C-alpha cells in the first residue's frame, strides 16, 4: 500500500517525496489543487472517502502523514 501511495503522490508532486520540512501545505510544496487531485486518486485507488475534516495541514504535512491517513481510513 505504501508504495502505491508514494507512486500516486509522486505523480502529483515529485518534490513531496524528498520533502523533509515541517508542513508541505504551509511551505507551498503542495497547493490546494494538488491536494484535491491527490485525494481524488487516493479515494479511487483504495476505495475510501476522505472527508473535508481530514483535509488539514497536519494530515498532509509530509508523505508519512499521508500514508498514515490512508492506512487509517482503509482500516476503518
Amino acid at each position, binding site marked *: 500500500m505504501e508504495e502505491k501511495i508514494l507512486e500516486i503522490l509522486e505523480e502529483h508532486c515529485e518534490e513531496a517525496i524528498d520533502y523533509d520540512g515541517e508542513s508541505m501545505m504551509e511551505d*507551498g510544496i503542495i*497547493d*490546494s*489543487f494538488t491536494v*484535491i*487531485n491527490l*485525494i*481524488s486518486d487516493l479515494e479511487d485507488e483504495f476505495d475510501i472517502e*476522505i*472527508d*473535508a*475534516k481530514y*483535509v*488539514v495541514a497536519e494530515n498532509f504535512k509530509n508523505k508519512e502523514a499521508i500514508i498514515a491517513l490512508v492506512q487509517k481510513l482503509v482500516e476503518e
Partner: protein
Amino acid sequence: MQFISYSFVILWMLAFALYYLFPKKMQWYVLLTVSLLFYIIGLKGFPIGLLLTGVTTYGCGLYLKEKLEEEKEKLQQCADKETKKALKTEFQKKRKRVQILYIAFNLGLLVFYKYVVVALPLVERLTGTYAGFLEKVMMPLGISFYTLTAISYVVDAGRENCAVETNFLKVVLFLAYFPSVTQGPFNRFAPMKEQFEKEHEFQYDRMLRGIQRFIWGAFKKLVIADRLGIFVDRVYGVEPSAVPGSIFACATVFYMLQLYADFSGYIDMAAGVSETFDIMLPDNFKRPYFSKSVAEFWRRWHITLGTWFKDYVMFSFVMSGTGRKISKACKNKWNGMGKQVAPIIGTMLVWFFTGIWHGRTVSYMLWGVYYGVIMSISLVLEPSYAVWKEKLHIRDGKIWTFVRMARTWLIVFVADVLIRSGSMAQAGAIYASFLTRLDVRCLLSREITSYGISKYEFVLLFAVLLIWLMVSVLEERGEDVRTYLSHRPVIVRWVCYYGIVLLLLITGIYGGSYDTAVFMYQSF
C-alpha cells in the same frame, strides 16, 4: 480608540501590568476585560452583534459536543458495520442541519449589517431623520472578522478538529480578543485556547520584541502607507482625462505598496501587542510582492483569509456530495482536464465570496471574479507550462524569476486599479489612459510633485521604501530581523532602533487633513 493613540498605549500598559500581576490561572480574565473595554468603550462598537454571535457560537458548539458524544456512545454499542455507517450518516445529518442554521444566521447578520449601511442614506433622504446616528451606534465593528472566526470554530468543532469550549466567556474572548478584533488576522480556536489557558511568565526580551514589532508596524503605517496615500488620493481624486497615464500608473503602484504597508503594518502592531502578552498570532503576510505567480501571491497575502476560504469553502465544496458528483461525472472528459471542473467551480466560489467580503460594490465583485478566472486558467494551463518552457528554451534563473515576479505585479496592478477607482467608469478611463496617454516623461518632470508629495518627500519616500525592502530581503532569506539585529554590535543595534523611532516621530504623517487613525482594512 485606534492603535496609534495615547489612550490605546495607556490601556495596553495597564493591561500588561495587570496581566503579569494577576494569578497565572486567571490571566485570560484580564484579556477578556480589556478586550470588552476596548471594543465597547474604545471602539464604540455595538456589542449586541458580538453578543449574538457569541451566544449562538457557544450554543452551537455545545450542541455539536452533545451529538458527537451521543454518536460515539451508540457506535460503541453497535457491532454491525452497515448499522454503524447508517448511524454515522444520521448523526452527520443532524449536526450539519444545525451548523447550516448557525452559519445562515451569522452570515445573515453580517449581510444585514454590511448592506443596512448602504441603505441608511436612503432612509435619511426619505424620512429626513439623521440616519448616520444609526450607522454609528448600530454598526458592530469587526463583524466581517469575528463572524468568519466564529464560523471556523463551529465547523472545526463539527469536524472534531478542535475541542468544544464549555466556558462561554472563553468563546467571547476568542471572538473579541482585542489585538485582532477589528482587522484580524483570522485566528483558529485550538491554538488560541491553548495560549489563553497557558500560564504566562513575564519575560523582558519577549516584551521588547513585542514593542519592536509594534513600532515597526507603526513605521510602516505612518511613514510609508500614509505618505503614499497622500499621492494616491490626490491622483485618484482628479478627473482621469486631466492626468497622464504614467501618473496613474505611478499612483497605482503606490497604492499597491500603500495597501500592503497599511495592512501588514496593522498586523505587525496587533501581533506585537499580542506578543507582549505571550500570545502569538498567526502569520498574515509573507512578503507577497516577491511572489512568482498569482497563486503564490495569495498564499503570502492575507494568509489567514486565504486559508479560511480554502478550508471552509473550497474543500467543503469539493468534498461535498455535489462536488463529488461533479468530479465523478467530469473526471474522464476533455483529455483528463475534466477532473479540474470541481476545483475550478470551488475556486470561482472562493473568489466571488472573497470579492463581496472585501466590498459591496460591483468593482469588488469583478475584482474577485478576475482573480478566480486567472487562477482557473493557470490551473488548466499548468500541465503545458513545462512543454512551452522547453520549446521556448526558457531556463530557470534570476531573469526568469524576475519576469515571473513582474508578471505577478502586473496582474495585481490591473486588479488594484479596479478597487481603487471610485467607479467602473473611472477605472475604464484610467485603463484607457495607460494605452492612449501614457506620457512617461511626466514621471521625471515637475508634474509628479504636484500631487501632495514634494521633491524632498519623494527622496524620503524612496529612502524608507529602501529600508523596508532591505528588511524584506533579509526576511526572505530566512532571517528573523529582530534576532539578526540583537546579534549586531550595540552601536549598530541602537542606531537602527533610534533611527526607526526618530523617523517615525519626525516623518510620520500625524493628524492634519489626512486621517491617520483609520486603517484601510477596517472598512472591509
